[in-house]
Structure formats: structure tokens, C-alpha cells
């Protein structure tokens, strides 16, 4: 039976609700403003870099040898190849170590040992890359010479905490019953770890590695003292120094010649753009695979 609307019980705001909701909306506006500011800053940075650097992109830019002191002519070819090579070597070192450390903490370590290791990983994650660079100078460069190996070791120290942390998070999401069921079936521990637990995290580990590589590719400080002496030609010998994007940008930017500075912007744009695209793709991929698995 339908009732006549009772004005005593109207659902319009009563008492101080109007004021309270105004305050709440004000806070919301502030939060929206902050987010908009962050997005705007991102837009300005990307746009400005594009403005200064996008015009530099050409075939010669991608393939030509490094320009001479006045920055005229040439391209970033050797630096591109060098960065790829450095990233490859660094990941070959970092991926196994990161995953293995995470596996140890998650599957085999006793709680106190796990806590110590997690603290160690956190401290490594917070280690400034300049200190890592200085350390590798003492470790490798002083005893040997500036080389891809040295820089790769430094970059791997940047990557390992990132990969290890993401792997740990992913492993913790593997449901405990999965491990227990395999155990109850009498399957050996190593088979469970490598054959059941690890594959379920493969997706996340891959994405985390891609993100870590993108981060390492943009780092200058670890390379600055470990792999920065090179000529204009292509160089891939891992025992020697090779050119790399960040260091070349630095060199070009410090020059007084406008052509060199323009090239620096072109390289900066290329580097930033590539890293951002890789980041977006990796995160979108991660979100999609997480949604598919219902996480």
C-alpha cells in the first residue's frame, strides 16, 4: 500500500549535513586539483621535451655514428646499441639473483632470516645510484678498467631490488593451498617451487623485469664512472667502455655548441619516450593479466 510522503522523514539533508557535505566536496576538489596538477606537470615535461627534441629524429639520428665535438652531423646509433647491450648484460645478472633471492625469502627462509633479507632488499632499493657507481668503481674499475661489465654490475644492483620485491609480492599471492596440495601429494620441494609456484608468478616477474630494465636504461650515475670513456664509433666489446644514451646526453648537453645541445634534446626525447611507452605497456599488460586471473 502506498503511503503519503511523511515530511518528518524526508531524505533531504538535515541539520549540519549541508555544511559537512560542502567540506567533503571541498576536500574532493583539492584532491582532484592535486591529481590534475601532477598530470599537468607530466604533460608539460613530455611536451617540452618533445618540442625541443622530436625534430631531431631522423634515420641518420638513429643510425649515424656519434657526432664530433661541435655536434654537427652524426647520430645516436652507437649510444642506442650501447644502452641495449648494457641493459641486456645487467638483466642477465639481475634477473636470476632477484628471483632467487625472492624465492629463498618466500619459500625457504625462516621468519627471522626472511625479515633480515627483506630489510637488506629495502636498503638496496633505497641505495642512491651514485653510491652504487662509486662502489663499482672501487670494485671493478680500479682493478680492471671501465667496461660494460662494470656498468652492467652497477645497473644490476639497481635492478635486483626491483625484481626481487615484485617477485616477492607475486609469490605471496600464490595461494597457500596450492603448495600444500602438492606437498600432500608427496611432490618434492624443489619440484613444487620450480614447477608450480614459480610458473604462476612468471607473468609478474616478466613485467617487473621489463619495468626494471626501463628504469636502469635511464640511469646515468651508475654508468658515469664505470663506462663513460668512448669514441664516436660503434663499440660492443664488453671488456671495454661503450657509448650509452644517458652519458651521451650528458656529454652533448655540456657542450657549448647549439647543434650538440639540439642533439642532446633529441636523445633525451627518444630516451624518455621509449621508457614511458615501455612503462605504459608493461603496466597495461600487468593490469590485463591480473584482471583475467581475477585478482
Amino acid at each position, binding site marked *: *500500500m*502506498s*503511503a*503519503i*510522503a*511523511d515530511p*518528518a*522523514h*524526508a*531524505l*533531504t*539533508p*538535515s*541539520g*549540519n*549535513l549541508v555544511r*559537512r*557535505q560542502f567540506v567533503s566536496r571541498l576536500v574532493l576538489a583539492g584532491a582532484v586539483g592535486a591529481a590534475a596538477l601532477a598530470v599537468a606537470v607530466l604533460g608539460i615535461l613530455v611536451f617540452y621535451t618533445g618540442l625541443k627534441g622530436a625534430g631531431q629524429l631522423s634515420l641518420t639520428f638513429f643510425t649515424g655514428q656519434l657526432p664530433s665535438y661541435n655536434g654537427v652531423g652524426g647520430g645516436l646509433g652507437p649510444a642506442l646499441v650501447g644502452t641495449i647491450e648494457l641493459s641486456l648484460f645487467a638483466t642477465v645478472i639481475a634477473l636470476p639473483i632477484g628471483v632467487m633471492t625472492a624465492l629463498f625469502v618466500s619459500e625457504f627462509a625462516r621468519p627471522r632470516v626472511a625479515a633480515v633479507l627483506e630489510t637488506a632488499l629495502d636498503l638496496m632499493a633505497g641505495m642512491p645510484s651514485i653510491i652504487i657507481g662509486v662502489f663499482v668503481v672501487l670494485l671493478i674499475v680500479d682493478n680492471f678498467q671501465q667496461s660494460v661489465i662494470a656498468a652492467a654490475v652497477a645497473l644490476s644492483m639497481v635492478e635486483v631490488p626491483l625484481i626481487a620485491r615484485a617477485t616477492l609480492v607475486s609469490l605471496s599471492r600464490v595461494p597457500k593451498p596450492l603448495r600444500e596440495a602438492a606437498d600432500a601429494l608427496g611432490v618434492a620441494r624443489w619440484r613444487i617451487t620450480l614447477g608450480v609456484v614459480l610458473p604462476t608468478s612468471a607473468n609478474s616477474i616478466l613485467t617487473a623485469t621489463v619495468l626494471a630494465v626501463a628504469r636502469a636504461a635511464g640511469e646515468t650515475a651508475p654508468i658515469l664512472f664505470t663506462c663513460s670513456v668512448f669514441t664516436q664509433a660503434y663499440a660492443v666489446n664488453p671488456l671495454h667502455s661503450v657509448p650509452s644514451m644517458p652519458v651521451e646526453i650528458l656529454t652533448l648537453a655540456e657542450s657549448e655548441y647549439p647543434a650538440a645541445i639540439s642533439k642532446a634534446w633529441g636523445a633525451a626525447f627518444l630516451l624518455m619516450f621509449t621508457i614511458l611507452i615501455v612503462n605504459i605497456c608493461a603496466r597495461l599488460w600487468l593490469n590485463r593479466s591480473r584482471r583475467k586471473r581475477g585478482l
Partner: protein
Amino acid sequence: MSLTETTPPEGPRPRVHLSTFDTTAVRDDRIDVAPVARETVFDATNVAVDYGFVRAIEAVTMSIYRNEATALIGPSGCGKSTFLRCLNRMNDSIPSFKFSGRLLYHGHDMYDRRANRVEVRRRIGMVFQKPNPFPKSIYDNVAWAPRNLGLRDNLADRVERALREAVLWDEVKDRLRTSALGLSGGQQQRLCIARAIAVEPDVILLDEPASALDPISTASIEDLIHRLKQHYTIVIVTHNMQQAARVADRTAFFSLDEHQVGTLIEYDMTEKLFSAPADSRTLDYVSGRFG
């Protein structure tokens, strides 16, 4: 121990007065009114709920009356909680939630554009299945919402009254400033009820309030509901038929219809529903043949 005590507190039964800022009149004590001519609080007509493309409930038409305890029973997954949460618009926070049909509260359309969600929740309180006290002191748990509402005069009295009505006062009066998380499950649930009472709602919704508790705490909650319905309108979802029989004036039986969607099968005075239900599905359920 006041858990098993059933005598009411000393003195005249406290009257619940709505604060003067509210334009509604002082609530008169309908304690002694005969259960016949009741005012309608909720009026649901053909209520249906979809979560995205999945229909959760449909064709729910029923009225809920003032100062009664109405139980919603039925097997799991038949939409009892979904319907309950429609009554205070708690489903709104679920992104894919879509409401169709009409739901009137004292004659006002609850899902109208002009209906203010926060106001709805102030008038229609809810107690959840798992006790969820804030990590604050017992006093602050109860005092938090009144403080928001600006009801700062005699706050300590208000807190005490709410805790007394929830039959928790004697157990906690000496430790009001200690953390609420130190209470037992049953005490925490009564604290949540006190919290809901403190803002002087019109209706209290209870979503399986005792299912996470032990039998003794359950008994004290049920006692509480008997008292509470004298001052508030109660709607309670329960899996426990015996609880519904003990506590509710009217009972609504929900189950799946021919489309495998939750719907209201039968709604009647509790005694009649349990002893001589009109629908065979109700009979099957209450006699334990399924569910």
C-alpha cells in the same frame, strides 16, 4: 554477569528524544501500542538489482512496518543481503550496481535524485556480520558519529545511553578509554549496535549479526533485538530459522525463482510462515527439506 541477565535497567525506560535541531517531533513511546495498525516504514515495489549484466534480485514487493522486527531468511545467495543493503543504499559503492523498481521510505523515494545518501544512512543504520569496531577507544567508537553530526552536548550521556541500550554499559563502564579491539566478539558486536544507536536512527538493519559469534553471545544479541524493536524498526537477515522464529514479528522468505535469480517467495507474520506457509517452497525450506 549481564550476558544472561534479562531484567531491564533501573528507573523508567529511557525515552529516545531526537535532538532539537531535527524538525521531527519528539518520538512518543509506542511501546504499548498493539501490533495491529502499524505505520509503513519501507515500501518496496518490484525492486530488482543488477550488478553489471548479472541480475541479483527481482520482483521484490513487500512493506516493512514500524517498531517491528522483520526477518529475511532463505538459503545463501538468494539476495537477502543485497535487498537489505538497498534499504540504506550501501550498495551504491559497488560500481556496477543498478537499482530498478521503487523503494519508498515513509513515502519518500529512496533512489530519487533528491534523496541524500548520507542522510539515508544517518536515519537507517546498519550492523554488519563481522563486528567492525574502529581502532579507537570504546568511548570514541560510540561518540564518533554523534560528533560528526554536531551532537556534542551531553555527549557522555548519549554514549552511556547507547551503551546501556546495547546492554554493554555495565561491562565497559570502567574502561571506556581502552581500545575497542580488546573486547570479545560478542561485546564488539554489541558495541557496533551501540554505535548505530548513538545517532538515534529510525531503522536498524542487521546483516547476520550473530553468525560470527558463539551461542551465548548470540543469545544476548537476540535479547537485545527484542528490546530494540520497541524503539526502532528492525530488519534482520539471518541464516538461522530458529533465530528468525525467536526474534521476528514478520518473516520474509527469499529464494531463487525460475530464472535462478533471487526473489521474495513469501512474506507473512512469523508464526504463520513457519507453521502454515502458503508456498510449497517455503514449506520445504522451513521444514528443513533443503537449504
